[in-house]
């Protein structure tokens, strides 16, 4: 296929601009990551392995992985439902609802953490009621999940929404004409169409949750082997001058994040869906 713009041959001045801009991108992005991987594996794979298998590091990575996975799954379900509501139901104030879904992309994650700490914190109205039952949200694992859910609200919604609104109504009509109920119509007509988009959104929210720092710092309490997530662990290692440990866990997270990003990207390319952050 002829690429778009193939007819436009760049002149010498355009080539200069291109080299400068692309050089900037490569220097800014590729070089720091290379440094990170270089530092992580500089002392050999054995050292790398030792650093990521210390009890504190291991439990931090594990906490980050399972909370991220949980959040990805909850988002797949509720994000699809939200997209459905936004596309299908002519409810009043829909544009406000739509803006609310985008809010977590704009609100600083640290502020999101502060909000949750105020609402569910140990001295708040809800917090005191819950701790009477022995349930803690803030400075405990539920707070981490809640914070991750807050910051990842848009991902599945924004991935599924365009796909859902482009499904041909004729398909649905045909299913209904053939006697299928609403649930069956959804399962046979809509579900197969939106599945890749929901999956890519879910992977995006998993990836985002894995890297979350600002809100977690406020709500998690950061107790080693309990509520210390991997990004906070990395931050602590940097603060205490342990660049080696930080680089090892950082490289591990980087590789997982790249794998997630690549799979989400493949799904997006296959379906034409777009990433929520753009």
């Amino acid at each position, binding site marked *: 296929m002829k690429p778009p*713009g193939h007819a436009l041959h760049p002149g010498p001045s355009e080539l200069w601009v291109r080299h400068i801009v692309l050089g900037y991108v490569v220097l800014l992005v590729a070089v720091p990551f290379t440094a990170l991987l270089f530092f992580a594996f500089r002392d050999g794979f054995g050292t790398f392995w030792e650093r990521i298998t210390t009890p504190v590091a291991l439990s931090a990575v594990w906490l980050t992985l399972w909370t991220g996975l949980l959040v990805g799954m909850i988002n797949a379900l509720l994000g699809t439902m939200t997209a459905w509501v936004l596309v299908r*139901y002519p409810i009043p104030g829909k544009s406000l609802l739509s803006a609310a879904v985008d809010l977590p992309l704009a609100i600083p994650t640290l502020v999101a953490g502060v909000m949750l700490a105020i609402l569910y914190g140990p001295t708040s109205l809800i917090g005191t009621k819950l701790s009477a039952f022995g349930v803690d949200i803030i400075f405990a694992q539920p707070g981490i999940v809640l914070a991750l859910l807050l910051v990842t609200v848009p991902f599945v919604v924004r991935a599924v929404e365009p796909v859902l609104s482009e499904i041909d109504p004729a398909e649905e*009509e045909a299913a209904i004409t053939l006697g299928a109920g*609403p649930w069956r119509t959804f399962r*046979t007509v809509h579900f197969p169409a939106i599945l890749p988009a929901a999956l890519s959104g879910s992977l995006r929210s998993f990836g985002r949750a894995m890297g979350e720092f*600002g809100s977690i710092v406020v709500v998690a309490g950061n107790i080693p082997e309990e509520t210390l997530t991997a990004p906070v662990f990395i931050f602590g290692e940097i603060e205490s001058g342990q660049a080696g440990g930080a680089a090892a866990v950082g490289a591990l997270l980087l590789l997982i994040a790249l794998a997630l990003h690549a799979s989400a990207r493949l799904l997006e390319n296959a379906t034409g869906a777009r990433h929520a952050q753009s």
Partner: protein
Amino acid sequence: MPKADRLRRLESPAEGLTLIEAESGERFSIGEAPQRVAPLSMTPAAPERVERERAVGKVVLLVLVLGYLGFVLLAPLGSLLLATWELGMAEVLKAVSEPLALDALATSGLLVLAAVGVNAVVGTFGAVALVRHRFFGRSFVNALCDLPLAVSPVMIGLAFILLVGRDGVMSPVLDAIGLKLVFTFWGMLLATLFVTLPYTVREVAYVLEEIGTDEEEAAITLGASPWQTFFRVTLPNVRVALGYGVLMAAARCLGEFGAVLVLGGSISGQTQTATTFIHDSIEERHLPAAYGMAVLLAVCSVVLLLSLEWMKQRQAAARHRSRSATEDEATP
């Protein structure tokens, strides 16, 4: 009837009979549909039942979705506003207008300005190069432009510390020219430029792919130089997308915490930004300052978000206009 992928309704070949064509090419008429597709017969009660089920489904979904968004998003937002109000407006205003708070705001503002300026230029030219040009390593650079969205801000900070920090790979070079990046404004600027890189490039690239090259080729054919084409044709076409990307970058920059904390170190009056100011105020239990600044940032981000929504609607309207214009031309 528009065409569907799985089942297709054909024109009625005979009076009162509708044919449904399955993907396999198999045809059957309504009323005697095969078991495989529709075990339910079309009794007159069926549409009523469908309507009822739909109504129930709608109520359940609305309750679930609104309840969920309220629980994780709107209630926390409301409680921040309420808590700030309860602290007393006068005290909050005093706390956020103290010199250190103003310094933090000024630092954040400078970072936003720099990020907006650099990304507007890099985003436009980068997108043009990535979409319109063909060269070795294009898909690699394309992938690089996406990466900052996929990795944790802390890791970005860490990567830069390992690169330009005290024992970093580049520290001999930086020492030689006397440039200190870690715990300075320039380090934070580096981190900010990194995290905000994708927004303008992606937005502009998306629009460039959408609009194609017809107008640009026309301009070239009419004798315009490449730069004339760029400033008179390409740039006006991507103007809205560029504005959109710049606003996204500004919002992200204003809210960035992890990377600027690692690289800036949050030194009061020097490298403290609005977000690290909130963090430090919470650590010091100085709640009026923390909540006040949090509300200020939340308000800024809501304003940015509303302008984004407005631009999105304007863009959709413009696209709709241009599409109907082409259709008008097509129909004699």
